[in-house]
């Protein structure tokens, strides 16, 4: 998986270069849809079915801030469907590294929704692909218009992100009219301080690229049970942020292990399950 992710990253760099070179005419016909070849590369040409009845992707039609576009992946199977969701992947077709994040879903987690924040470079289709326990793939699609003006998919305050590198917070979202948290399915939000540098940013003076450094692996456990594991890339926003639900299993702690592409590991844990 890691090798295929890196190759998709490399492919993305190439796509970016072609994108710049080919962008010579604002009125030129729409470029060919990258999705068929992306889907082929990332999912090894396995067939995909329309997932509208099983999964949902929430994304704004217009990205307000290119650096912070909220998206929510939902994957609740209907009652009676005895399969499980094993993996959910988010692909931002026109981004320099299209594979934004791939989430392995803990088999006992009860997880049915993950919200995170993405960088969106251009007008693009976004795909959510779910792999079920029977091996079938399901896909849904949303179109997102790029942010306008001086907005950019870059850090706003990199000194702050670097000064607190790896600091993490976990927040249990109390049951309110705005939150579906119940004793049977709780909701939490994980926040990680990290600049998530893309490595695609060239210094105009030295013509050297600012090195990539981003959270490429994240594992969240409730006690010893996996809630989810993520492989991520540079499309995840500065200060990665994940809001998710989970079925309480009686464990008293939530544990997180994150690693960045520089090999640095960040660990943290918090007590959970108090009265809300």
């Amino acid at each position: 998986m890691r090798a295929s992710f890196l190759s998709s990253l490399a492919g993305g760099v190439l796509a970016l270069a072609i994108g710049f070179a080919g962008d010579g005419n604002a009125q030129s016909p729409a470029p060919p849809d990258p999705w068929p070849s992306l889907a082929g590369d990332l999912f090894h040409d396995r067939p995909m079915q329309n997932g509208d009845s099983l999964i949902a992707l929430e994304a704004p039609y217009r990205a307000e801030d290119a650096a912070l576009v909220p998206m929510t992946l939902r994957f609740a199977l209907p009652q009676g469907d005895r399969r499980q969701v094993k993996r959910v992947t988010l692909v931002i077709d026109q981004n320099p590294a299209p594979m934004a994040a791939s989430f392995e879903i803990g088999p006992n987690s009860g997880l049915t929704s993950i919200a995170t924040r993405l960088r969106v470079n251009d007008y693009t289709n976004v795909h959510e692909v779910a792999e079920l326990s029977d091996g079938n793939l399901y896909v849904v699609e949303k179109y997102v218009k790029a942010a306008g003006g001086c907005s950019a998919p870059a850090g706003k305050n990199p000194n702050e992100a670097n000064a607190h590198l790896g600091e993490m917070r976990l927040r249990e979202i109390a049951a309110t009219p705005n939150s579906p948290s119940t004793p049977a399915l709780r909701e939490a939000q994980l926040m990680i301080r990290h600049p998530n540098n893309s490595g695609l940013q060239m210094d105009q003076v030295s013509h050297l690229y600012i090195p990539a450094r981003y959270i490429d692996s994240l594992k969240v456990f409730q006690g010893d049970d996996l809630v989810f594991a993520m492989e991520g890339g540079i499309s995840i926003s500065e200060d990665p942020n994940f809001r998710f639900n989970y079925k309480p299993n009686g464990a008293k702690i939530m544990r997180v292990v994150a690693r960045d592409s520089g090999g640095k590991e960040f660990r943290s844990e918090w007590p959970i399950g108090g009265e809300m």
Partner: protein
Amino acid sequence: MNRLVYLVHAVLLAAFAFAASAKEAEPRLLLKEIAPGVFAHEGLIELTTQANEGAIANIGFIVGDDAVAVIDTGGSVREGRRLAAAIAGVTNKPIRYVVNTHVHPDHLFGNAAFDSPGVTFVGHANLPRALAARGAFYLSSFRRLLGEELIDEVRIIPPTLTVDDETVLDLGNRELVLKAWPPAHTDCDLTVLDKKTGTLFSGDLVFMRHVPIVDGSVLGFLRLADALAAIPAKHVVPGHGPLVANWPQALEAERTYLSHLVKDLRGMIKAGEGLGTAAQKAGQSERAKWQLFDDYNPRNATAGFAELEWE
């Protein structure tokens, strides 16, 4: 054969001469002398388009006994050339400094119009990094807004003189105080104070009429209002809005907007609202007071939400 070469040379020379004269003939940017030796151009309160050539920010220049300092160069090289033509119409003193108040394209895409050996580009110590992170993206994304002809000649020119805290530029019997600020509108905001006339070029640390834009830190922006108010200026050229306004009263509307936005966002974070909802709801009570509100307020709310979650 030789004649053919001469002919080709002659045609090329004529073409170059034509191109050069076309550049010299660029119409002058409309200027106002807002204080003795201080000139500025009022940008439109619009989004960047091909039609407005990116001329949406207030930009200007200051003339000393020896030299000229340009403060922001506009949103296209064409606007920059029009500013250069306007300067040449006012003074024959050389342009020694070009100051960029921050990283946004409407303030520095005109830099290439001033790129010559005698000119030093000046900016916040964080500006080179911000240009490295965003420059290529801006060149690509503004192609759609400005069109091919205007974007093709834009070059990203980073500062070679950077300001960590405070620097004084002397234009000859005329001192400009350049001050670098912590993250607020962006992470590379720089102001220019002309001591002689008490004129402050605030860059986008001051917005009037045009809704403020938060691309650095909403709390930093709000807190900075007090520090800015202490600047001993008589009047300000805001980054967007009227050409000149009284100081420090010019800060009031912006401060009110930012404090309402922060208050709304804190309430929504506490209530467990998501980022998408906050983007649509926060700050809406200020809507009637500002132009371009729907273009930028949801973005400010988005950035502010992500920042305030860490409180």
